[in-house]
């Protein structure tokens, strides 16, 4: 056992032993061990947030968000169970019915993490009724468009702008059912200092923040999730090791 291994703590996910550094979240430790825990609001390089709740796991029998829960020695994590799959699916389906997701003409289709999560979880049809809310499209920026119909309030744009771009372009405004992404100007994103090269313009998991004039470039069949489920790259890591 190397000195580095000795510094690590150990816990289990679905009975499999996982080594982790103190301070890591369950999600981070799992990913390094080649175990995929479905997640949407968590993104490598951004601080944990815990809003989508798709990463819900059981820690010693209690539901917790894997993306915000720090690892601890000996904790017993359940991830790949039928009940959790159903819970995650129900949550993903909530996101579908809450917004207006018309995948058939969405620039993000094929590369969208929400859609891919639906595919991975085998969603054919949300169990919840559609809400068809009235939402706005903000096309005021010359290079970037915001289609709030597709926003899942994951705050990746908020964090990317703050933590990676050193700006503060996005923030939640309003609350509850009316909560939405606000921008740092009265008249829409066009009035902010958002640049098309910002990391925030790339952080959106869905088709809410999209760059103008570059949509539909990749042909169907070659898009990110056309043939391989989301999470495959993490699981491939484990396959390579084993």
């Amino acid at each position, binding site marked *: 056992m190397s000195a580095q291994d000795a510094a690590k703590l150990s816990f289990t996910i679905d009975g499999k032993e996982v080594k982790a550094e103190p301070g890591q979240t369950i999600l981070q430790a799992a990913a390094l061990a080649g175990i995929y825990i479905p997640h949407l609001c968590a993104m490598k390089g951004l601080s944990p947030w815990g*809003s989508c709740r798709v990463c819900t796991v059981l820690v010693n029998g209690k539901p917790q968000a894997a993306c915000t829960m720090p690892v601890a020695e000996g904790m017993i994590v359940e991830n790949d169970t039928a009940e959790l799959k159903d*819970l995650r699916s129900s949550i993903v389906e909530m996101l579908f019915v809450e917004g207006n997701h018309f995948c058939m003409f969405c620039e993000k289709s094929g590369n969208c993490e929400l859609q891919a999560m639906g595919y991975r979880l085998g969603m054919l049809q949300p169990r919840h009724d559609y809400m068809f809310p009235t939402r706005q499209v903000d096309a005021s920026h010359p290079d970037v468009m915001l289609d709030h119909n597709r926003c899942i*309030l994951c705050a990746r744009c908020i964090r990317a702008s703050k933590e990676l771009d050193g700006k*503060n372009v996005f923030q939640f405004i309003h609350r509850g059912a009316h*909560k939405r992404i606000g*921008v740092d100007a009265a008249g829409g994103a066009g009035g902010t200092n958002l640049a098309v090269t910002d990391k925030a313009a790339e952080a959106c998991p869905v088709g809410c923040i999209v760059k103008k004039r570059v949509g539909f470039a990749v042909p169907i069949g070659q898009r990110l999730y056309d043939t391989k489920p989301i999470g495959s790259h993490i699981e491939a890591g484990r396959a390579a090791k084993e």
Partner: protein
Amino acid sequence: MTDNASVSRQVCGNFGNDKGRLMDILIGVQAQAGCIAPEALDEIAKSLSMNRVEVESAATFYAFFSDKMRGRFVIRLCNDVIDQLQGADRVAAAFRAELGIEFGQTTADGLFSLAYTPCIGMSDQAPAVLINDRVVTKVSTDMVREIVQTLRTGKSLEHLKLTLGDGNNSHPLVRAMVNNNLRERGAVVFAPYTPGVALQRALSEQPVEIIKIIKASRLRGRGGAGFPTGMKWEFTRAAPGERKFVVCNADEGEPGTFKDRVILTEAPGLVFEGMTIAGYAVGASEGIVYLRGEYAYLLAYLEDVLAKRRAAGLLGRDILGKAGFKFDIRIQLGAGAYVCGEETALLSSCEGKAGNPKTRPPFPAQKGYLDMPTVINNVETHCAAARIVENGPSWFASMGTKASSGTKVFSVSGDCAQPGVYEIPFGITVQELLARVGATDTIAVQVGGASGRMIGPSEFGRQFCFDQLATGGSVMVFGKGRDPLAIAHGFMDFFVEESCGYCTPCRVGTRLLRERLGRFLEGRAEAADLDYLEKTSKVVKNASRCGLGQTAPNPILSTLQSFRSEYERCIKKNGTVFLPSFDPGKAVAVAAGIAGRASEHFGTKKGGVKA
């Protein structure tokens, strides 16, 4: 008003352009300018050197702020379940008729705005309204007419002739039409109080000894969650931090809870004394009382009590002559958000932000206000802590039950002869309490507010205590003729309104649950909807990020358990292949109206369905 910008500049200046005081700044601008307009956002952002969207984030979160001009008198009618049962609808109709506007609107003369608001902590004197920061209780339709006429001609709240309430409600700094309805005083909270006695005793001990005393008393938090107070203090003491804080949670937003209001009215000194002792025990020198905006009428009075304590050497430096021990308290007003009672959302709000809960862990004891170790306790918990130090842990532990020591202050409302506040040792059964409050023919009791449970008569033999029926104080009594499903629906309205919207299951799930429950009330439900309610409730309960979402399905889960036959009774017997939730006649009604003819297949006559 066009001076939104200059008002904003001036208010920011009053608070030293400190962005940590954004809440107070927004409250000030709203009060002085009548709204927080887009120019105000620009101006505040400039004055505080922060991003406009950050200001907008806070300004759009709280119900008491508005971007549109509100009337000089903002009338907020409490539409809590209890108020609804006691005639809030009639009062609403009277206001509508008298003012000629709908709720959510402002009169053309700019004098009045009408709004609904969730429980304002007056369920024992419902229906109640807030007019700006004045409370009017037991409102009748006659009173509505009088109020509107007085304000219309007098144009000042001072002209309102309100009968002042009992006790300190008549204090010159309170002058409120609120009654304490304090029916039973116990040995802990409402016993006679002499300022400084408990504190003197505390200061004669080492801080760690105080924590030991609290632990020995087995005191558990009175705010609802029931966490052992001594442990919380110990964690905070042990956590490293340059500054530490003691917070008193006086948000009291749980529907049907009003005991903290009465404690703050009659025993504020005891609350502050408890906070000061906590500060001594954990090594904090700053305290914050988070007072819900609905209780702003108590602000001047509470500030005065604090000033008197400073003058008496009970706050400030070298308290009671103890060299080096300093502690002071500021009051942070809220602005209409139930979620801000959740301890981490409360901290966000104190920091001047939108009241979104924070990620836990870390817990406030490690990283609380301004990321510093923070103790947060309920108003009543602070009182109990002070008394425990004063009279000893075994005195306290001798009251109540083994796992739930001491007394509990209950807020009883609803269908009973003597609604009000009762301080009673833990362990009293529902049946006994119902007898004391003069409740007969009770069909259901909601224990612990909207987030608690609705129980039926089969459970009335159970005790109020942490391991049986836990409550932060709210006990709502429902008599014969009340509809458990309609009540549960009212609570779901509350959660939908009050969800902060941060996480998916609570933001979306509460709406889905409310809609599905509504189908039962409207006779559009099918048997499968029971299963949907159960499963979706569990998702919301298990996956939500904070206590609000984790308890939001309780009205449904507990009525499914206690009143299942009510649900089953509502299931539609269907004679068609259409889902009971789909009404073809209704779906074509709009188009039939536009086309001026009935449907070919689903005959509609003015929206009705041809059989």
